[in-house]
């Protein structure tokens, strides 16, 4: 940990690597986040419409409930779990392969702090970029719900839009972003740890990748509970 979170040898190169990682790990995650958010947003809206069947419940609650589910849990926690699979396996296998092919040893021989060089740019890049994915997911999820409502006419689109705007608490947006920033540290450091200490050839790299995804998923769920308790009480 202390090896990772130290001042980089060359700040200019660190910035360059960080931008590269931001593109490689963050920007390329946009399509999967967009597709999942659109569809899950539509499914949530549909399920809310089917379950809020009582004439006593105003229809605007369908939009309201869809928004709250997306903002509070889906766009941060569920997206983080998806990214733990996509980004985590990428990090663990990349660093693990470098370990077993002695590329990390080659860096150490040169006198480079390999943990800092390889891991810190990924952590910083995703802590900065992933909150944007959370915001994007919330927006696309709400649009997905809107499209579903518009196409199926399960409720009037006006009711859905009114529900989306009804008693809006801005803090929920920040709550999702704060959670995602913390989850991003988990998504990057745990797979990096497993990859960095990988051994036993390609089989070992595969195992480290699998273990890292399981471990980071559990940590995300535990921290979800802790952060919810801390931030929403």
């Amino acid at each position: 940990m202390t090896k990772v979170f130290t001042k980089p040898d060359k700040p200019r190169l660190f910035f360059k690597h960080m931008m590269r990682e931001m593109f490689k790990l963050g920007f390329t995650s946009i399509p999967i986040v967009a597709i999942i958010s659109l569809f899950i947003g539509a499914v949530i809206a549909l399920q809310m419409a089917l379950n809020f069947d009582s004439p006593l419940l105003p229809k605007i609650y369908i939009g309201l409930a869809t928004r709250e589910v997306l903002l509070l849990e889906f766009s941060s926690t569920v997206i983080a779990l998806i990214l733990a699979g996509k980004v985590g396996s990428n990090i663990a296998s990349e660093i693990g392969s470098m370990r077993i092919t002695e590329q990390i040893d080659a860096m150490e021989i040169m006198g480079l702090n390999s943990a800092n060089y390889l891991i810190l740019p990924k952590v910083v890049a995703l802590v900065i970029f992933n909150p944007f994915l959370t915001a994007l997911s919330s927006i696309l999820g709400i649009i997905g719900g809107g499209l579903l409502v518009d196409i199926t006419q399960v409720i009037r689109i006006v009711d859905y839009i009114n529900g989306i705007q009804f008693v809006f608490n801005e803090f929920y947006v920040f709550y999702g972003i704060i959670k995602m920033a913390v989850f991003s540290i988990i998504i990057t450091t745990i797979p990096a740890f497993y990859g960095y200490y990988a051994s036993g050839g390609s089989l070992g790299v595969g195992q480290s990748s699998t273990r890292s995804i399981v471990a980071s998923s559990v940590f995300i769920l535990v921290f979800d509970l802790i952060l919810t308790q801390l931030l929403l009480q």
Partner: protein
Amino acid sequence: MIEVKDIYKSFAGKEVLKNVSAVFEQGKTNLIIGQSGSGKTVLLKCIVGLHEVDSGEIWFNNNILFNKLSFKEKKEMRKQIGMLFQGSALFDFANVEDNVRFPLEMFSDMSREEQDERINFCLKRVNIINANKLFPSELSGGMQKRVAIARAIAFSPKYLFCDEPNSGLDPRTSILIDNLIKEITEEYKITTIINTHDMNSVMEIGDKVVFIHEGEKWWEGSKDNILHADNKELNDFVFASKMAKTLKGYVEKSS
């Protein structure tokens, strides 16, 4: 010059190196030979500091006790060390040019033009031409080794370590790599330690040879007297192949 004194190293209670002492001379190609699993790679990695020794001393140039240096001192010292790994260990994310540029970019204040000049010099020195933009996966095994040598010498090291430099190479390319390492060693007067089990390398470039058997040093000498050594384990190793046994017959006849 590098001297190791009474080196002990064990992993999970299993002793891999036992009381190893040896001197590796400057401007010469020093070879560590032995069977697979004899402990020669562990010895090499202990010397370069990739493994911490359990006990013993590693002296660089008679005045630097390398294994007792602080992290910061070791970091400085590493700028004088180049290493060629068994699998080349070229960075997959960088092309040939950027692999050689890596140590220059990280540890020097050279301008981009100066770096380019040095890169082209090093690549030319190892006969890599018109391959600057190729990635490691696009290179043959021999080319990868040569690029790795270029990267190792980019920072003009005083010490060069090679872990089985001709593993996976055909005999002809092996000789080319061996001779390249020897030329560089003599040209820049560096202390080179090569870890190998290839007897062709021993006979080609072995200025000084250290034989390791079951984690202990069993013999020390040069390529000129290895064939006449009075050491059963060494003889079993040297004359393991049918070709070597035939050659031994010729040597005995001629003497």
